C-alpha cells in the first residue's frame, strides 16, 4: 500500500513539474526532435544485449518497457 | 522490393474493399495534372475532386506571377513602388520556406532570381542569344533575397525593380495541399500529380505503393527508374527538352542568381521526400549546385534519382 501512495506521489510530481514548463510545440517545430541523434538506441539489438547483460549481474532488471522477458540467467 | 505495378491502367473497382479507382485529369498551373484515388462512390469522388481543384485554382490565382490580379503580383507591384502590402500567414510561411531554401542552398535558391528569365529565352527552338555581361550585371543588381524586407505582416523591397517568384515552391506546395484536402475528405489511397510534382496520400488499398516511373530524357518511351510512393512526395527539376547548348556545353534552363547564367552539370534530378515541396526544392537546389548536386543530395539523406548533363 505504501508503495502505491509513493507511486502516485511521484507521478503527481512528475506531471506537475512537466505541465508548468511545457511549451505547446507545433508540428513544424519538431525538426530537432526528429534528428537521428534523438533516438537513444539506434541499434535495438545492442540495447537488448546491454539490458540482458545487466539483468544477469544486477538485482534489478527492466523498467524500460515490458516483456523483455526470457532471461534465464539467475 | 515492393512492386506490382498498379498504375492508372488499373481502373477497375477494387473488389476486396468495394472501392472504385477514380482518375481525373485537368490542366492547372501551366501543366497537365491528374488526381487519382480510390473512393466508395464515384459521384462522391467527383465532388471530392472538385473541391481539390478549387483549392488548386485558388492557389494559382494567389501566387501566379503571370496574373496581375494575384496577391503575389500585387505584392511585387506595391513593393516596387516603395509601398508594402499586408500578406496572410500562408504567404509569410511561403516566404519563410523560401528563406530556408536560400539558407540551405548557400544562396543559390533565391525567389528573387526570376528576373533573369528576361535575359534568357528558352521557349524557342532558335539558338540562344547570349546576353552581354552588362545586361547580366544590371539584372543581378536587382536580385537578392536579403533585399526583401519582411516586417510584421508586410513585405517590401530594399531595392527597386525586384520581384518575388515562387516558382519551384508553389506548384509543389499545391500538391501537398491537394493531398491534405483529399485526406480531409476521407481519401486513404490516392496520388496527386501536378505536372510531375507528386504527392501520395497512401498506397493502393492492398498496400502496394504507387510506382512512379522516371522517364529517360534521352530515349522517348523508356524509363530509367521506378520510385515507389506510399505517403511521400516526389518532384523533378530539370527538363531535358528545355536544355540549351552553348558552344558545345549543355545548360539547363535553371539560372544561377550568382552568375546570372544557366547552370551546367545535371540535366534532371528527382527527389523523394516526406513533402512534395521539400522534394521540389531539394531537386532544384541540387540542379543549381551543378556538379556538387549529387554530393549535396547524398548529405541531405533523401532518396533521389539523377541524370547528369
Amino acid at each position, binding site marked *: 500500500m505504501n508503495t502505491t501512495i509513493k507511486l502516485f506521489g511521484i507521478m503527481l510530481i512528475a506531471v506537475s513539474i512537466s505541465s508548468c514548463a511545457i511549451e505547446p510545440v507545433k508540428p513544424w517545430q519538431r525538426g*530537432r526532435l526528429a534528428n537521428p541523434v534523438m533516438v537513444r538506441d539506434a541499434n535495438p539489438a545492442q540495447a*537488448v*544485449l546491454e539490458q540482458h547483460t545487466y539483468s544477469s549481474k544486477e538485482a534489478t532488471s527492466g523498467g524500460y518497457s515490458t516483456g523483455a522477458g526470457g532471461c534465464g540467467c539467475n | 522490393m515492393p512492386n506490382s505495378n498498379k498504375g492508372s491502367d488499373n481502373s477497375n473497382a477494387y473488389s476486396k474493399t468495394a472501392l472504385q479507382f477514380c482518375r481525373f485529369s485537368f490542366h492547372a498551373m501551366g501543366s497537365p495534372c491528374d488526381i487519382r484515388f480510390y473512393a466508395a462512390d464515384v459521384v462522391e469522388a467527383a465532388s471530392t475532386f472538385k473541391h481539390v481543384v478549387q483549392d488548386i485554382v485558388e492557389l494559382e490565382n494567389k501566387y501566379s506571377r503571370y496574373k496581375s490580379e494575384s496577391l503575389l503580383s500585387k505584392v511585387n507591384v506595391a513593393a516596387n513602388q516603395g509601398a508594402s502590402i499586408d500578406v496572410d500567414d500562408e504567404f509569410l*510561411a511561403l516566404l519563410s520556406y523560401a528563406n*530556408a531554401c536560400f539558407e*540551405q542552398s548557400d544562396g543559390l535558391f533565391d525567389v528573387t532570381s526570376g528576373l533573369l528569365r528576361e535575359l534568357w529565352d528558352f521557349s524557342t527552338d532558335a539558338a540562344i542569344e547570349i546576353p552581354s555581361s552588362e545586361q547580366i550585371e544590371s539584372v543581378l543588381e536587382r536580385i537578392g533575397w536579403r533585399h526583401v524586407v519582411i516586417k510584421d505582416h508586410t513585405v517590401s523591397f530594399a531595392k527597386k525593380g525586384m520581384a518575388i517568384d515562387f516558382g519551384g515552391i508553389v506548384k509543389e506546395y499545391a500538391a*501537398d495541399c491537394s493531398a491534405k484536402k483529399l485526406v480531409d475528405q476521407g481519401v486513404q489511397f490516392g496520388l496527386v500529380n501536378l505536372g510531375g510534382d507528386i504527392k501520395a496520400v497512401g498506397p493502393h488499398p492492398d498496400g502496394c505503393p504507387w510506382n512512379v516511373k522516371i522517364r529517360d530524357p534521352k530515349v522517348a518511351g523508356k524509363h530509367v527508374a521506378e520510385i515507389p510512393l506510399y505517403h511521400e512526395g516526389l518532384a523533378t527539376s530539370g527538363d531535358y527538352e528545355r536544355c540549351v547548348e552553348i558552344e558545345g556545353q549543355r545548360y539547363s534552363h535553371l539560372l544561377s542568381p550568382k552568375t546570372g547564367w544557366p547552370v551546367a552539370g545535371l540535366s534532371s534530378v528527382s527527389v523523394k521526400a516526406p513533402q512534395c515541396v521539400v522534394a521540389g526544392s531539394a531537386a532544384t537546389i541540387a540542379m543549381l549546385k551543378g556538379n556538387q548536386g549529387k554530393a549535396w543530395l547524398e548529405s541531405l539523406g533523401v532518396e533521389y534519382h539523377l541524370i547528369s548533363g
Partner: protein
Amino acid sequence: MAVTDDKGDNPIEKGAALGALMSAALALPGVADAAQGGFRSEDVKLNYHRAKYEEKGNRMSVETEHVTLTVPVGRDFEVTGSIIEDITSGASPVVNFLDIDGDPHQFVETGASIKDKRDIVEASVGYYGVDDYASFKIGRSEEDDYESSYGSLSYRLDINHKRTSISFGAGLTSDEVWNSYNPDVLLEEPSIFDRRKKKEFMVGISQIVNRNTVAQFNVTYAKSEGNLSDPYKKVYVVDEGLVDYRGLIDVAGLFRFAVDFGLVSFLNESGITRFLNESSFIDVPEVTEFLLGLKKDNRPDVREQWIYLLRFSHYMESTNSGLHFDYRYSDDSWGADSHTFDLKWNFGFESGWQISPGLRYYSQHSAFFYDVFFESLPEDEFVSSDYRLAGFGAISKKLGLSKTFNRKYTFYIDYERYDRHYDYELGGASKGSDIDDYRFKMLSFSVDAKF
C-alpha cells in the same frame, strides 16, 4: 558521374539541411496536418549483431549472435522475427568459504568449465495507427537448464496533437528451471525441477517539453512467483557445520588448493565425483551440509518490484547532438533497492557518422536474506550468498560508433567496460564484500541493412 569537387559547400549546415527544409515546410498551412504521424517504415530490415563479453581473469566469457528481420505487412503492420544464440563458457562462484582468520573467499569451480548454450526465438507484430501503436510479442528461450516462454502486449496512444503519448504494457514470463545435473561436478545438487512466473505491468507517459526536449516517465510493477532460488549456488552457514573451522582449518585455502592443484578436476574427470554423487550410500549434499555447513541457496518465493523510470532527451544544436539521461529507481520487496543513472550522448556528424559516449552508474542495496556467509541460519531460513543480491555499485563506460552508407547500410561498433565494486554503493555499503568485485569488457559489432 564522379563528383569530386566539394568546394564552396558549407559542410556544417548540410547535416541539418533536410531538417531545416522540413520544419519550414511543416509551417505551411496546407502541409502540416498531412505530414504528421509516424508512418511505418516501408523497408524490409535485416540486422545482424555479434558480441563478445569477457570477465577479467577469464572467469566467464559469452559470445552472442543476434539476427532480426523486420518486414512491413499490409498498410499498417510490421512483423519482426529474431533469433539469438549465446554461448557461455567459464565458471561462476558457487559458495564463499572462510579461511583460518574467518575471512571469506569465493569458491569458483574452475575445474569444471561450463559451456552453456542459450537459444532465443522471438516474434512480434506491430500495428501503426494514425494516433496509436500496438504490438504483441511472444518468445521462447531455451538453455540446458532453463526454459522460458514469454509474451507481452503494449499499446501507445498519442494525444494532445502528438505532444503527449501514453503507453501501457503487460507481460508474462513463464519459466521452467532445473539444474542440468552433471554428476561429474563436485558439489552439484541432484536434479531439481521447478517453475517460476513473472508478471509485469507498465504505464508510461512521454511528453514533448519544448522544441529540444522530450521527457518520459514510466512505472513498472513486476511480481515474480515460484522457485526463485539459484540451483547452483550454496551458502556457508557456520552453525550448520560440524565445527566452526575458524582458527582451526583454512577451509577456503583447502578448496582453493584442491582447485589449483587439479584435485577437483581429477575427482571430476576420474569418475570419483560421479561415483560419489551416484552412490546410494552417501548423499553428497547432506554430507557437505553436515560437515561444512553448506546450505542451498533459498529465497522467498514471491518478489515484488516497483520500478520508476525518468528519461530526458535533449537536443543541442551547437553540437548536433542528443543527450539522453535516464534515472531508474527500483523498490524491491527483497530489499535489493537500486538506483541507475544512465547517460548517453549521441553526436551526429556529416555523412552518416554517429559517435555515442555513455556513462552508467548502478547502485543496489543488499537483499534482506543476503550475506557473504552466515553465522547461523535465520528463522525464516532464507539465505543467499549470490553476489547479484549483495550491496554494490557499478560504473560502466561506453563508446559507440556508427556509420550509415547510402541510407541502406549501417555499421555499429560498441564497447563497454563495466566495473563492479562493493564500496561503490550509493550512501555507504550494505552487506557485501570486495571478494565479489569484478570487471567485464564487451565488444559488439552490428550491421543493419534495408531493402
